[in-house]
């Protein structure tokens, strides 16, 4: 058996730095407490060198100009811990969630995949770095030894079997986390490291310190045996960020969204997963609109919701954070939150990565991710209901259709065979005359002679109907509130000639040809529906 312990030193600071990568090389101190009393609860080494001490008040820490002071964030610590679990799960399903800053992996049998224990440790450090965490890794055949070595030694530590006691000897007894009373006793005895503790006779130690003393003695010798308490890392991919000041503009909001998406995508990548949907949740500041409405006495106050939620569904699973950010931006531009944002929660619905096999003889098709971005931009330009793939509705209503999501296929065999055979190369079939629709339909004046239309007037043009086919009577929806009843005619119109300038700028909608007109019996009016072209 071999165990690898991963420890995140100075975990609260690293959790904050992970959310703000710009703080990476700077002195950072975290304050916590109940306002107005704020004390420094954590600081990185640079801040400690600069003079910051744990426990000092915020007012004492503020004069240190080089030190960035941040509030401790439980939300970011939770996200960092989830990322740590994702890191462990990307290597081994057998892992223990020891503490918020420490996990232990069973790495038995991973040699064939990742190489030696040193290689495994190096890859753990590398992947942790990709997730925004700096970690210490220790590998040992004893679980407790690996745990204490990770907490006590920086970087990578590999302890060969049989050398546990020797390796732990240099560690301070504080690493074994004794109670304060025992620690004080040990310090009074002059026992400061594990080697000194391991050298004490166990019987006399038991008489003086009890069972706790015996346990510490076993830990110091590297002889404490226990089994792994297995944990099941969840599939909840969520990143949160609580803001000190509300953000009302899109640009700074997009900047923060980009950071959170980077973290989400890195976690998904660690678990070899992708996102099929991104949920956005904002906690909003009380809106001015609400205050304004409360002031007006004439109308009852309409309380604006304090949250904003959106779901971005993706046609193909992806973990490309840049593309996801562009899509989120388009979504926010289309439907922005009605007030400034105080808290951001981004969550991803995990899915298996897309497995696509290209074919040499398949026609070219747009890259799905790029296509989604293009469609998003088009939707912003012309409106979301005006972009998509048309779909006929199973109804007799004239011209009924709906817009569906555009999802082309690359495989020719999925196209109905009748279409393929009908439009074979160099088809000799007579083509169907195409129809163009007037949207909205144009009201027309029609003169009848013996119930046949003979002259038509619409869009400022008058013409003779030289042939007409109809009426084709259709009706429907009589059981609903929007019934229709129409008599359709196909008419060939020869418009009266116009002269001069008006001919040059005349609308192409009024030119000689075959038009489809109809008489709406319910509205008692004639309309032009379109023309053959």
């Amino acid at each position: 058996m071999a165990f690898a312990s991963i420890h995140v030193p100075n975990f609260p600071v690293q959790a904050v730095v992970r959310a703000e990568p710009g703080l990476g090389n700077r002195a950072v101190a975290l304050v916590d407490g109940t306002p107005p009393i704020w004390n420094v609860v954590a600081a990185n080494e640079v801040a400690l060198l600069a003079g910051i001490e744990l426990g000092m008040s915020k007012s004492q820490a503020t004069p240190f100009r080089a030190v960035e002071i941040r509030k401790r964030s439980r939300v970011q610590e939770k996200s960092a811990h989830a990322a740590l679990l994702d890191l462990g799960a990307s290597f081994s399903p057998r892992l223990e969630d020891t503490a918020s800053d420490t996990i232990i992996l069973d790495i038995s049998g991973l040699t064939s995949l990742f190489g030696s224990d040193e290689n495994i440790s190096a890859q753990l450090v590398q992947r942790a770095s990709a997730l925004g965490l700096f970690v210490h890794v220790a590998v040992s055949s004893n679980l407790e030894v690996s745990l204490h070595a990770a907490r006590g030694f920086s970087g990578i530590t590999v302890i060969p079997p049989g050398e546990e006691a020797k390796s732990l000897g240099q560690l301070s007894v504080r690493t074994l986390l004794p109670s304060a009373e025992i620690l004080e006793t040990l310090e009074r005895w002059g026992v400061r490291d594990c080697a000194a503790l391991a050298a004490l006779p166990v019987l006399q130690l038991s008489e003086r310190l009890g069972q706790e003393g015996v346990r510490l003695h076993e830990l110091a010798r590297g002889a404490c045996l226990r089994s792994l308490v297995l944990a099941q890392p969840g599939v909840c991919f969520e990143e949160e960020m609580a803001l000190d000041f509300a953000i009302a503009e899109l640009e700074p909001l997009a900047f923060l969204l980009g950071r959170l998406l980077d973290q989400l995508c890195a976690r998904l990548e660690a678990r070899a997963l992708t996102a099929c949907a991104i949920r956005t949740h904002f906690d909003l500041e009380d809106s001015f609109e609400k205050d304004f409405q409360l002031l007006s006495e004439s109308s009852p106050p309409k309380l604006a919701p304090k949250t904003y939620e959106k779901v971005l569904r993706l046609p193909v699973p992806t973990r490309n954070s840049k593309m996801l950010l562009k899509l989120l931006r388009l979504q926010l531009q289309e439907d922005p939150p009605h007030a400034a944002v105080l808290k951001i929660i981004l969550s991803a619905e995990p899915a298996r990565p897309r497995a696509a096999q290209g074919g040499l003889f398949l026609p070219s098709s747009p890259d799905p991710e790029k296509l989604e971005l293009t469609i998003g931009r088009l939707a912003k330009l012309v409106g979301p209901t005006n972009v998509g793939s048309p779909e006929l509705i199973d109804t007799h209503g004239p011209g009924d259709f709906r817009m569906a999501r555009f999802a082309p296929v690359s495989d020719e065999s999925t196209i109905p065979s009748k279409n393929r055979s009908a439009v074979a190369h160099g088809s000799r079939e007579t083509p169907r005359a195409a129809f163009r629709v007037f949207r909205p339909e144009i009201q027309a004046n029609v003169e009848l002679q013996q119930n046949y239309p003979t002259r038509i007037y619409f869009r400022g043009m008058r013409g003779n109907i030289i042939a007409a086919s109809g009426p084709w009577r259709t009706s429907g929806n009589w059981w609903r509130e929007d019934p229709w009843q129409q008599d359709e005619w196909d008419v060939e119109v020869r418009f009266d000639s116009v002269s001069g300038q008006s001919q040059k700028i005349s609308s192409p909608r009024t030119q000689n040809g075959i038009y489809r007109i109809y008489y709406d019996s319910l509205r008692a009016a004639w309309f032009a529906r379109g023309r053959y072209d």
Partner: protein
Amino acid sequence: MAVNLATLRSHVELALVGRVTAPFSYRDRHAVETVSTGIAEIDSLAGGLPRGALTEIFGSACSGRTTLLLSALAARTAQAEACALIDGCDAFDPHSAVAAGVELKQLLWVRCRNIEQTLRATDLLLQGGGFGFIALDLGDMRADLLRHVPLESWFRFRRAVEDTPTVLLVLEPESNAKTCASLVLRMEAEPARWSTTLETHAPDFFRYPPSWLSEGFGIRAELLRSRMQPIATNSFQKPFASAGRSELIETNVLRSYLSVTRMESAPK
């Protein structure tokens, strides 16, 4: 001198080996791959629609431009190619397209309201890439508006589509793309064909008014410009006609007479 030239040439070729395949061979930019329009007469006239180039179809309303567009769309979607239609006047009829054989799932339809939206949408789709066929339908727009489209827009479209497998087809009332178009076709409508009961009921015209059925109309396509040279591919190829030649195509009307009840006018 000739020996020196040959030596110099071989020296340059050796220096560029691995970077440039054939530095001294002429690359013919006019050799393009073409695809079928779905109408045999137009294929024989123009040789099909060129990939990586701009094709302009113009003509008055009811001249058969949309019929040609739907035929080309049907041919491309049948080959499982992703197609896009930028509809400048929101005049596309999905029912008519299905009747023409267009596979709607393969078609991205962008419904625009004005010329600015239409040109911007075209830019976005061309930049996105990957489409086998992009049609820009400006057929119902006022000619004077289209004349004000800057020439650089057409150049930009031509450059964007160059060296790609995309067919870019533009429908207009007048030709505006000028030299940016590799293929220009002018469409004209021929008189419509009607079948009538006029002759059979002629003796008693007022008692039984004549019934008429539209059978379609003819389209005349004229090739105005073609700067294509065929290349040997497995795609559609036909011998090309010279500019100025025209072809007549007959069409059927869309309406399915069997599925609708015919209402005869009641005699008075």
